[in-house]
C-alpha cells in the first residue's frame, strides 16, 4: 500500500467551504467550537476547526504539550499517546482507567486555560540544502512551469520560514506550511518508485524533505545532507511539530563536507530562537 502525501492545503480548504449545502456542511457551520469525537474505543479526537491555520495549529501544539505534561502526573490518568496534527489532536487512552466523558471534561478544562498563555519564541532549524544537481532532478521543470529562474526559485524557497504543522506519514516526515505560492507545482502524474532520503521536494502547495528512501510524487528541487530520521542517533527524529524550518542554500562540496561530519557525528543542526 503506497501512501501518497496528501493534504493539498488550498484545494482542501476550497472544497470544504463549498460544501455548505450538504448535510456535512450544515453540521460544520459552527466551526469555532472545539469538537470532541470518539475514534474507536481507546482514542478521541479534539478538533479545533477544519482549516489549516497557524492559530489553530498553535492551539493544537499547546494543548498537546499540556496533556503530555499532565499525563506524567496524577492530574490526568489513563492517557497514552498524543498525536498533534494540522487542526486536531488524537489522544489515545486506556478505557479501563478513564472513559470518553471523563477525559473529554478534563480536556475541555485544559483547553479553557489555554487562552491565557503567552506567545513563546520560535525554534527555527536551519537546514542546509543543495539545490539542483543530482538531487534536484525536477528543478528545470519547476523553472519552466513557474517561469522563474533557478536563482529566483532558490531565493524564494530558502527565504521562507516554514512552520512544522505536524509530523506523520513516515518517521520524521514534517508537514511544512508557508511555501511561496509562486513555487507551487502539481505532483508528478506517475510517482517515482524510489526517492532517496534527504531529497527536498515540492508537491502542490507543500514542500518537505523525504526522511527515508520512499516512493513519492513530489517535484525534487534539491537535497539536504541532514538526516530527518536516523535510527542510529540518540534522538532518531530531527524535529517536532510546532518548530520551524529554514533552508540554507549550500554547494555540492558543502553537501559532502556536512555529510562527512554527520557520519563522524560532528555535525549539529544550527538552531535559531526568534
Amino acid at each position, binding site marked *: 500500500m503506497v501512501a501518497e502525501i*496528501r493534504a493539498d492545503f488550498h484545494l482542501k480548504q476550497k472544497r470544504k467551504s463549498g460544501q455548505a449545502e450538504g448535510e456535512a456542511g450544515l453540521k460544520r457551520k459552527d466551526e469555532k467550537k472545539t469538537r470532541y469525537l470518539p475514534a474507536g474505543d481507546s482514542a478521541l479526537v479534539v478538533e479545533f476547526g477544519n482549516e489549516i491555520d497557524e492559530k489553530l495549529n498553535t492551539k493544537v501544539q499547546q494543548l498537546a504539550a499540556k496533556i503530555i505534561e499532565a499525563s506524567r502526573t496524577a492530574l490526568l490518568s489513563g492517557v497514552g499517546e498524543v498525536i498533534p*496534527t494540522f*487542526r486536531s489532536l488524537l489522544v489515545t487512552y486506556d478505557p479501563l482507567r478513564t472513559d470518553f466523558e471523563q477525559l473529554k471534561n478534563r480536556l475541555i478544562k485544559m483547553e479553557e486555560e489555554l487562552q491565557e498563555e503567552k506567545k513563546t519564541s520560535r525554534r527555527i532549524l536551519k537546514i542546509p540544502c543543495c539545490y539542483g544537481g543530482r538531487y534536484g532532478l525536477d528543478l528545470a521543470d519547476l523553472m519552466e512551469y513557474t517561469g522563474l529562474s533557478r536563482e529566483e526559485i532558490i531565493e524564494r524557497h530558502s527565504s521562507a520560514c516554514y512552520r512544522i504543522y505536524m509530523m506523520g*506519514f513516515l518517521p520524521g516526515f514534517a508537514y511544512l506550511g508557508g511555501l511561496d505560492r509562486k513555487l507551487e507545482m502539481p505532483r508528478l502524474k506517475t510517482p517515482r518508485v524510489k526517492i532517496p532520503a534527504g531529497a527536498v521536494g515540492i508537491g502542490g502547495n507543500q514542500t518537505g524533505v523525504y526522511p527515508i528512501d520512499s516512493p513519492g510524487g513530489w517535484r525534487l528541487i534539491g537535497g539536504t545532507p541532514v538526516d530527518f530520521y536516523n535510527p542510529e542517533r540518540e534522538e532518531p527524529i530531527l524535529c517536532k511539530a510546532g518548530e520551524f524550518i529554514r533552508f540554507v542554500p549550500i554547494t555540492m562540496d558543502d553537501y559532502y563536507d556536512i555529510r562527512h561530519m554527520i557520519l563522524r557525528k560532528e555535525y549539529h543542526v544550527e538552531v535559531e530562537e526568534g
Partner: protein
Amino acid sequence: MAMKVITPGALTTVQDGGRYGYQSTGIGVGGCMDMDSYRKANYLVGNEKGEAVLEFTLIGGMLELTEETVLALTGADMAPKQNGEPVPMNVPLAFQAGDVLELGMAGTGCRCYLAVAGGIEVPLYLGSRSTNLKCKFGGYQGRALQRGDVLEVGKSGKPYEQLKDRECFTEEYPNTVVVRVIEGPQEEYFTKKGKKTFYKSVYTVSDKSDRMGCRLDGPAVESFDGTDIISDGIAPGSVQVPADGKPIVLLADRQTTGGYAKIASVCSFDIPKLAQCKPGNKVRFQKITLEKAQRIMREAKKDELF
C-alpha cells in the same frame, strides 16, 4: 539457545506488543496483528507479557531448535508437526535440542504465532522488538525472516513440567466475520445512503490486504463531496474510505496520520478477527455505542490470562 530458520514461510516477522510513544514523530506502533493470540502464546510458555514472538502469515515455515525448550502456537492452525509428528495448537510443547518444528498452510485463519520460553531475543529498538517492514528497523535486522537466519532466545524461568497444564481456548476463524464498530470520527462526510451501504453490505477481504490494512472489495460507500480531509491522526481499527469508496481498516502497520475520512473505527476486541481474515473472507460491520464497547472491554478484563 537459538532457533535456526530452515524455511521462513511466506511472511514471518518478529513482533511484540508494539512500539508506543513515537506516533507524534511519524513512527507507527506495529506489533502483532492479532493481540489475543499473541498474549495467549506468551502465557502458554510462561513468558512475561511483552516478550517477542514470531508471526507467520498464511504459510508457515520450518525451524530447528538448538536446545531443549518450550514452544506454543496460537492463532491460525498451520497443522504444526514436531519431527514430522502432528502436535496440537494452544498448548505448551516440549522440544529437545535438534527437534524440528514444521508449519504448513493456514487452515482457517491467516496468522499463526509462535512463542518460545524466554522470548525471541532481538535488540530493542525504541522500546520494542517489533519488525517495521516499511522502515526496515526493529525485529530481526528490520526484515522478514530468511532461510539460514539464527534467532537467539532468552532464558526461561519455567520448565515444561510447570507449564504443561496450561491450555488456551481454540478460536474459530469463520469465513464470514461480523466486526463491531463505533461510528466516527468523520461519519458526517458520508450520505445516509453511504452509511446504509457500509452497514448492510458484505465486503470481501482483498488480496491487497497487508499488515498495514485490511482492504475490502464491495459496494462503494457514498460520500457527500469526496473523502479528502485535512490529514489527522489514525487510531487502530480506523475504517478509512478513499476516493473509490472501498473501505480500508487500518491495522498494526498503519500510518500515524492520514488524509481520508474515517467512517467508523473497529472495536479493539474485534481487530483480531480481521487480523485472521484471509483474502476472500467476508466482513460485515455492526454499529455499537462507545459505552457498550467500553463495557465489553471492562468485562473482558476480568477474564484476562495475565
